[in-house]
């Protein structure tokens, strides 16, 4: 059993009569990359802020690394990249990382070696002395990422880390997430870019109206069902009836048959059934269900509202 690094139970936050988060119950293990998804106004930011100790919950409880959220001992072991990372823009990149390293209580000796290495890692090695005000939004995010990992956190919270980043920057974020998980850190990723989440995370949770409405092991929903597109001629109504034994999700349009089976092992039976009923099968192509498809299914057609 994996050690839980994030363990939140019925966490709640209300502002007056308005409930921003109604029930946040999540468990995340060590070394896991966890995606936290939801439409605008669903309570994502408030949830993350509660876990970071920036916002006091109205109810429920949460443990980070086995200790109550927000304590200094916990904060010494976490890292956070806020959305739209901003800082005193007259500092240079290395001064900024140095400042954050000192805030983490790191020794000067450690920082002397670490700061150049970190800036090199986020692709700003040659620009370490430039003031941040001359940086683009993407470069600013890179600096933000470097400050978030300066203390080798055990839990790394990333809030929209790839917004404003070019493809190379996005790859960098993915790589850093991979490295952090590999060294044993938990990565908590809050993002709108579902493609990024799909590539980086092991598991995702959806939040809607302040409640977790679903948790999925990445790709589990794909192995749990297979949607296929079959090109076949002369599909008879008898064949269609017989196929209903395998699926109730069946559409025939011209010579294209789309169906969804819960187990891929039933696909040979589907094909045999078609052939035996006199149909001519030209191709069987599995269709991929993307995270975006899943998101839209869970959230409904107008998730933003």
């Amino acid at each position, binding site marked *: 059993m*994996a050690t*839980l690094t994030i363990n939140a139970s019925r966490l709640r936050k209300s502002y007056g009569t308005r409930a921003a988060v109604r029930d946040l119950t999540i468990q995340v293990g060590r070394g896991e990359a966890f995606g936290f998804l939801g439409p605008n106004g669903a309570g994502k930011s408030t949830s993350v802020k509660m876990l*970071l100790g920036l916002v006091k919950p109205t109810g429920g409880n949460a443990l980070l690394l086995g200790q109550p959220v927000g304590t200094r001992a916990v904060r010494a072991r976490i890292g956070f990249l806020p959305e739209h*990372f901003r800082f005193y823009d007259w500092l240079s990149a290395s001064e900024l990382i140095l400042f954050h390293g000192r805030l983490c*209580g790191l020794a000067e000796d450690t920082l002397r070696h670490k700061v150049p290495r970190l800036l090199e890692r986020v692709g700003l090695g040659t620009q370490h002395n430039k003031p941040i005000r001359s940086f683009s939004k993407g470069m600013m995010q890179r600096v933000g990422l470097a400050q978030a990992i300066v203390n080798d956190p055990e839990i790394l919270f990333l809030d929209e880390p790839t917004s404003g980043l070019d493809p190379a920057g996005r790859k960098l974020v993915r790589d850093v997430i991979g490295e952090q998980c590999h060294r*044993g850190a938990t990565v908590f990723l809050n993002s709108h870019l579902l493609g990024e989440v799909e590539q980086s995370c092991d598991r995702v949770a959806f939040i809607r109206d302040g409640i977790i409405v679903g948790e*999925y*092991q990445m790709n589990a929903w794909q192995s749990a069902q297979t949607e296929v597109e079959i090109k076949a001629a002369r599909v008879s109504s008898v064949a269609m009836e017989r196929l209903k034994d395998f699926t109730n999700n069946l559409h025939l349009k011209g010579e294209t048959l789309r169906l969804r089976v819960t187990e891929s092992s039933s696909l040979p039976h589907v094909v045999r059934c078609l052939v035996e009923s006199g149909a001519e099968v030209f191709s069987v192509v599995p269709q991929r269900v993307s995270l975006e498809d899943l998101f839209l299914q869970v959230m409904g057609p107008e998730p933003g509202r």
Partner: protein
Amino acid sequence: MSESTIDMRAATDTPTPQIDDDQLNARAMEEVSNLNHPFGPSALQTTLLIARVTFREAARRMILWIALLAGIGFLAFFWTALYFVTKHHRPHTSIVDFREGVVMMTMMVLYAGSMMTSLMAVLTSCDTLSGEIASGTIHAIATKPVQRWCIVLGKWVGFVGMLTLYVLLIEGGTILLSWIQSGYRPPHGSAVLCLIWLQAMVLLGITMAMSTNFSSLTSGAISLGLYGLAFVGGWIEQFGSLRHVKACVELGILSSLIMPSDALWRRAAFIFQPPLLGAAGVTPFSGTLVPSEAMVVYAAVYALLSVLLAQFLFSRRDL
């Protein structure tokens, strides 16, 4: 939730890590032991870190340089004026009359300087907490292993450093120039500087306390509003004292209790002038009522409590 066509089986098990858990835990523990301070930097270290960055931040703002230029302009102007006054000092004018003129001029410049210092205290600090909360800059700092009250204290120390230098330059410079040109050395020069400095501290504290909960603009407006109230209250008190209207005197005292900035200035002005001149009540700043030492103590406590209030409010609020 709408009926879904996708099989949504929630993961019920605790996730399985990609690599061996013990190995990960061991690695994590090793990294923690690399931290010099497992609970973050000490309160003193945090305060000094934030103070240093705040001092530099304040120095980067245009307002400081503009105020500094204006201050130096004042000093240059004042020096020139003093030069001509001294040059045209006729031998038959008594030394008392000459000094009275110089003291009056110096006090005008000191007053302008104290106003600029007060404005500086408000304008540079009104944005520091509220601005960083609004922009999200504070999020990366407050999630570090530091106490929130140290963040406020650090900022305060940074501003105190900046304002101290400012008071020394502008007001200290004024007193020094006046001394050099006219030979008049105020009996309690350093006390005058301390009182004007305390005036800035009072405004700094209250602005920071406001800035923990209100926007930058609102915080600045509240502090300047209080400053204005104290100014008017001071004149009402003087008027009441001259015309023996007790209610006006009490109103004036009440305004000083709400915001002691003007009381501090009046005391500073009183102790700056030669004792005889002050007692004669011939300068605009030498009314019959001079704020007591108790008022100075009250102002010092006020300044201290407002910083503590800022720390308390900032530690409690959601960011």
